[in-house]
């Protein structure tokens, strides 16, 4: 196999990975930031970084876990770099809780059930605002991306025990929010 053929194959494989994992990475970043533009930008940065380091990907974890780790780090760096709160507030496009909770498939619910479900979704968003960065990340990976604890641990660089502890605290806060602060 020539060097050019190997490079072509690697490029094709990377393109396939982008196609299959892009929606998931975007969704995670969207849920983390509640900002479509920012999620879009960070997703692009994530895949750009992945492309640059694709040669170094040894396949110790799945491509999804590897990409998710990059996305988590990018998101962390992004918020860390925005020290000036004024500009952070001015530049952000983050939607409010009501807008974020609007997206709920009606399914077979009645109008009343639909309203109640939206209110509850809004309460989960509200509870998420009170979570630490790690708790929020772990919570989203578990309950939105439905990842296994081992994958979350690999993506976040935490031990499974720590992941469980963060999840437990996050769930307690969500439960408290749903139960009226109990």
């Amino acid at each position, binding site marked *: 196999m020539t060097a050019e053929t190997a490079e072509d194959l690697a490029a094709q494989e990377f393109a396939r990975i982008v196609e299959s994992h892009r929606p998931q990475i975007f969704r995670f970043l969207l849920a983390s930031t509640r900002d479509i533009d920012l999620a879009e930008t960070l997703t692009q940065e994530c895949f750009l970084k992945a492309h640059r380091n694709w040669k170094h990907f040894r396949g110790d974890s799945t491509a999804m876990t590897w990409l998710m780790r990059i996305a988590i780090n990018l998101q962390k760096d992004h918020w860390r770099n925005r020290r000036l709160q004024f500009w952070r507030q001015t*530049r952000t496009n983050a939607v409010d809780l009501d807008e974020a*909770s609007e997206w709920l498939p009606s399914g077979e619910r009645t109008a009343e059930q639909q309203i109640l479900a939206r209110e509850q979704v809004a309460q*989960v968003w509200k509870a998420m605002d009170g979570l630490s960065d790690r708790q929020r990340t772990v919570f989203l990976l578990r309950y*939105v991306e439905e990842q296994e604890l081992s994958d979350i641990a690999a993506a976040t660089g935490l031990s499974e025990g720590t992941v469980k502890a963060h999840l437990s605290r996050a769930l307690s806060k969500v439960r408290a929010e749903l139960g009226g602060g109990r």
Partner: protein
Amino acid sequence: MSLNEKNMAERHEPVSDAALEEVLGNFRQSVHAWSDAACIAPGTTAWRSARHGWRLVAAWALGCVLAVGTLGTGVYEHHHQRVLAQMRAAQQARQQQLAAQQRARQADEELLATVDSDISRTVPAAMEPLAQLMDEGESQQAGN
């Protein structure tokens, strides 16, 4: 019972695991639907980017106006303070000059008073006629 009242009443009951599972399921569906919609709508991002760009420009413009305003106010205030200080100094100098003139005038008056008192000393009885003659002579000169 209205929906809100019903919701409030439900809020005071502990959330069961099943209910929590259901809420988390709804939350998951909601995020998936939102993300899918954001991915599908290609114009949305461009429009939002444009809006984002305008907001950025507006924020910078506001920032510049504030900076120029603050700087301008500072410069004006500095200039104003300098003018006031100059006026105060001039006024003080004038007052000092007036006080000096007043003091000089007062010193002159005191000197004249001392001289007068020295001159208008009581004349001994033997010299009285001579003094009267001098007074008369002075009054005649004044009358001429």
